[in-house]
């Protein structure tokens, strides 16, 4: 039996990393008896190992709570746990579209952060009712009054009746549950209308196959029904319907306002596009839900196995990941420096890092990643426009008319004392200031920046210059033309493809100098002198030299040393397999890894 609409509340939690979203979720599950204490593991919702380690949510998840409120009624509360990171902004927007309200969780000792802001604006865009929750009020450093004021100043919502709680100690959890029931609106919908359900998320389960998370708006979803995905145009028979409590529990149907999962013999996650509308095959709805967007990777990098023999394993691994993550794309790539690998597309830098980490951790692969880059739009003199995913593929400069690059709008919150350094960083990265204001003791800087400059260690730099205090979020803007040039790195006059990059002309020299200095320290001395140059076209913009080896011979070598010498030679020969040959120069793979990780300019 579908639950009556007025007894349903669908909500998400908006919070900055570390502000206690997962702990609060766990508390809510525990307080409503979803799990016994024994079953309760820390942060149930973040079930991926990486999620738990990083304290972040990557995949949207959901849990159905049953709560007997002070008014005597029993409510069904659907908590949609959303990924908090900008890389997953689209997934967040779909999760938010499945809810009517949000809890805005702010750490009472730290206040509003850039990410909070971006996510709460998204929630407001979805007409969410927002209940501010001040978490960690038990901490000695908590300043609930100041933070309440900050929420009103920065976000512009009434925080006078913010709920105070401590997810860690359990303090105020009852108040949070009551606020959900009394202050958030119930969903609307017509059970008699044709089925209209939002595809919120999909993932691959080794036992069930592809599992699809849906929110029903109109009609009733029943097992055995033929449903149609309106964007994909494909039809499936629903095998199984269930809800997460948080353990998966079968139900017979899902009515309007309800959230649950279905399985339907779907082969790949890529067949279940987030944001698609599900309807009945026999009685389709006239109007699909709005807001569908196909997934678009924005950051690209090459992934290569350190040991060429692992290429097939890498192929299998990226295939497996893609099964479960349609936003991750890959195609084969070959590099003289790094051998066979894949050019991979990601939603953003965090997504890139997560995939890389999963490949190494879950698939035990030792990988080299090339410098992340963005998609450039290159207009040729012929008038044709091409999308460039890999700087190495840039056509001959004489055929290139213009190059445009994607820009972003970045919002940065920082304690006042680091503002100077933050502004300098943004300026160094070709940023254009749009706004600078103060929120209490914290400054908010809004900059337009080329994404190219951001994917290149911007976040790490920001964290380091602000001792970890600055927070950062961004949204995509349009493409803008720029004076971009391809910079090549030549080792002993041979170009090293893995190190070529598109840079702004004004930054080319600094980048080139940084790169050759780094390579100079990374290439071990050879028997001859090795020049390392950075060049734009035929013009050398920076040069360093690796000196020749002067002394490499064991002083004492007698009868007892023969075995030692043999073993050392064997080890060195083995080590040579990890070297890449460029003309007469052998470059250790570690050098590429380190050069591509280049930190400061």
């Amino acid at each position, binding site marked *: 039996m579908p639950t009556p609409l007025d007894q349903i509340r669908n909500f998400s939690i908006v919070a900055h990393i570390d502000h206690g979203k997962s702990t609060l979720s766990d508390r809510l599950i525990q307080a409503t008896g979803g799990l016994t204490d024994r079953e309760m593991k820390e942060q149930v919702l973040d079930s991926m190992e990486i999620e738990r380690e990083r304290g972040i949510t990557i995949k949207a998840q959901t849990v159905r709570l049953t709560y007997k409120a002070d008014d005597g009624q029993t409510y069904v509360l659907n908590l949609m746990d959303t990924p908090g990171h900008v890389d997953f902004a689209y997934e967040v927007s779909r999760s938010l579209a499945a809810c009517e309200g949000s809890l805005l969780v702010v750490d009472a000792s730290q206040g509003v952060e850039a990410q909070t802001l971006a996510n709460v604006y998204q929630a407001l865009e979805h007409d969410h009712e927002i209940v501010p929750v001040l978490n960690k009020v038990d901490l000695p450093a908590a300043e609930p009054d100041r933070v309440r004021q900050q929420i009103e100043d920065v976000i512009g919502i009434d925080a006078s009746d913010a709920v105070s709680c401590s997810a860690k100690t359990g303090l105020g959890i009852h108040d949070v549950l009551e606020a959900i029931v009394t202050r958030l609106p119930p969903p609307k919908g017509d059970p008699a209308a044709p089925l209209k359900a939002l595809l919120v998320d999909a993932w691959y389960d080794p036992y069930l196959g592809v599992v699809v998370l849906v929110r029903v708006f109109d009609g009733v979803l029943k097992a055995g029904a033929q449903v149609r995905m309106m964007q994909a145009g494909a039809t499936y028979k629903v095998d199984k319907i269930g809800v997460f409590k948080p353990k998966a529990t079968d139900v017979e149907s899902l009515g309007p306002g309800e959230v649950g999962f279905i399985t339907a013999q779907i082969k790949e996650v890529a067949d279940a596009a987030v944001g698609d509308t599900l309807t009945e095959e026999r009685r389709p709805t006239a109007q699909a839900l709005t807001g569908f967007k196909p997934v678009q990777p924005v950051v690209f990098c090459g992934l290569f196995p350190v040991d060429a023999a692992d290429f097939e394993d890498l192929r299998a691994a990226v295939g497996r990941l893609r099964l479960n993550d349609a936003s991750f794309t890959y195609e084969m790539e070959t590099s003289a420096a790094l051998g066979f690998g894949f050019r991979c597309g990601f939603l953003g830098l965090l997504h890139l890092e997560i995939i890389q980490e999963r490949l190494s951790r879950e698939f035990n692969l030792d990988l080299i990643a090339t410098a992340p880059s963005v998609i450039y739009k290159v207009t040729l003199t012929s008038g044709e426009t091409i999308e460039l995913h890999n700087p190495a593929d840039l056509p001959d400069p004489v055929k290139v008319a213009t190059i445009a690059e994607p820009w972003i709008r970045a919002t940065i919150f920082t304690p006042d004392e680091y503002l100077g350094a933050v502004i300098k960083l943004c300026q160094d990265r070709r940023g254009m200031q749009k706004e600078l204001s103060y929120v209490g003791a914290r400054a908010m800087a809004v900059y337009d920046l080329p994404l190219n400059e951001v994917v290149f260690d911007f976040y790490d730099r920001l964290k380091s210059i602000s001792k970890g205090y600055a927070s950062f979020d961004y949204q995509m803007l349009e493409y803008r033309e720029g004076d971009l040039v391809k910079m090549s790195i030549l080792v002993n006059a041979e170009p090293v493809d893995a190190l070529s990059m598109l840079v702004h002309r004004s930054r080319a020299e600094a980048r080139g100098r940084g790169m050759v200095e780094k390579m100079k320290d990374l290439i071990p001395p050879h028997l001859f002198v090795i020049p390392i140059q950075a060049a734009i076209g035929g013009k050398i913009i920076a040069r360093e030299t690796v000196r020749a*080896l*002067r*002394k490499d011979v*064991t002083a004492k070598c007698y*009868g*007892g040393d*023969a075995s030692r010498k043999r073993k050392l*030679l064997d080890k060195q020969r083995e080590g040579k397999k990890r070297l890449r040959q460029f003309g007469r120069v052998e470059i250790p793979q570690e050098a590429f890894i380190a050069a591509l990780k280049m930190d400061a300019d």
Partner: protein
Amino acid sequence: MRSIPAPSPPGPALGLYVHWPYCRRICPYCDFNVVRHRGRETEARALVAAILRDIAAHRARTGPRRLVSIFLGGGTPSLMRPEDVAEIIAAARGAWSPAADLEVSLEANPTDAEAEGFAALAGAGVNRLSLGVQSLSDEALARLGRNHDAATARRAVARAQTAFARVSLDLIHSWPGQDEWAWRSDLEAALALGPEHISAYELTFEPGTAFTRARDRGRMVAPDEDHRARLFALTGEVLSGHGFQAYEISNFARSPAARARHNLIYWRGEDYVGVGPGAHGRLTLDGVRIATEAPRAIDAYVKAAGDEGPAGAWLALTAQEAALERLAMGLRLAEGVPLADLAALAVDPMRIAELGAFVDVQEGRLIVRPSARAVTDRLALELCPV
């Protein structure tokens, strides 16, 4: 009347290395298998007995061979009792057929106490002394943590030259703070003493030594590569200027006859038996190259050197492993290494040609050009097919 030469025993010629692990004190740069000898007299007796047993056990495996060299190294074999030295030499001579010009070398420390025993050691059968003077400058000796001064070293050299027909001096360069002038002075002071042979070693920071710990803690600054390369080049310059031939990376001889015949066995890949704790040997038995290694701990060695067989592990090397050793050891010699000995390694003639600035092939022997000796280890690696 011509004498009829005795028939040579079958099998290749043989050298014998005897490791004597005791020292009066441990040098701060030494990573050899050594212990302090004080209070270990009983153990030392047992060790001599074990070495004698081990020689007999090796003889059972090698069969009759022509013995061309005995080398007592360590450690500080000049601390051995002359009667023990005599017994070991006698055992070796009895086990194999000694060559007429059998070389019997012994490593010695140039202290007064040890120098007093030189005549007795000569009486025991030692005919070549390798003296670890290391330097003839008091400052350098103090820095190197040696237990003698330069004057003592000079007295010891004089006594050695009286007692032994052949004397070699060990010197160390590239210690922290040594400049070219200091090294040149040391070399010239050593030459003035008239040795027939000089071993000049670059100080190496071996893992686990006091010097390496001091360097890693920033209390000692190791000279940089350029400086070490200059001192290495200077060594060759000064010694060749005095008629010495650099026949090996760190070894210089006044004449071919003055070369350390025992050490040539190692560099030429010939056969040698190693006895004593931690000693290594190489034997060619039925065409297979065998690597032997005795237990490092003295008590373990004494126990293992039983009547049932030689102490320690015997490992057959593959043809490729044996060739790899030939390359690493043979390139150190000015005479190089016969390409025929490297057949199993399949060194690419193209690679040799590419490295033509550094190596050469003369009469079927692969040699490192004199100007490239300082990078011999790298050349060995570059010549190895990957």
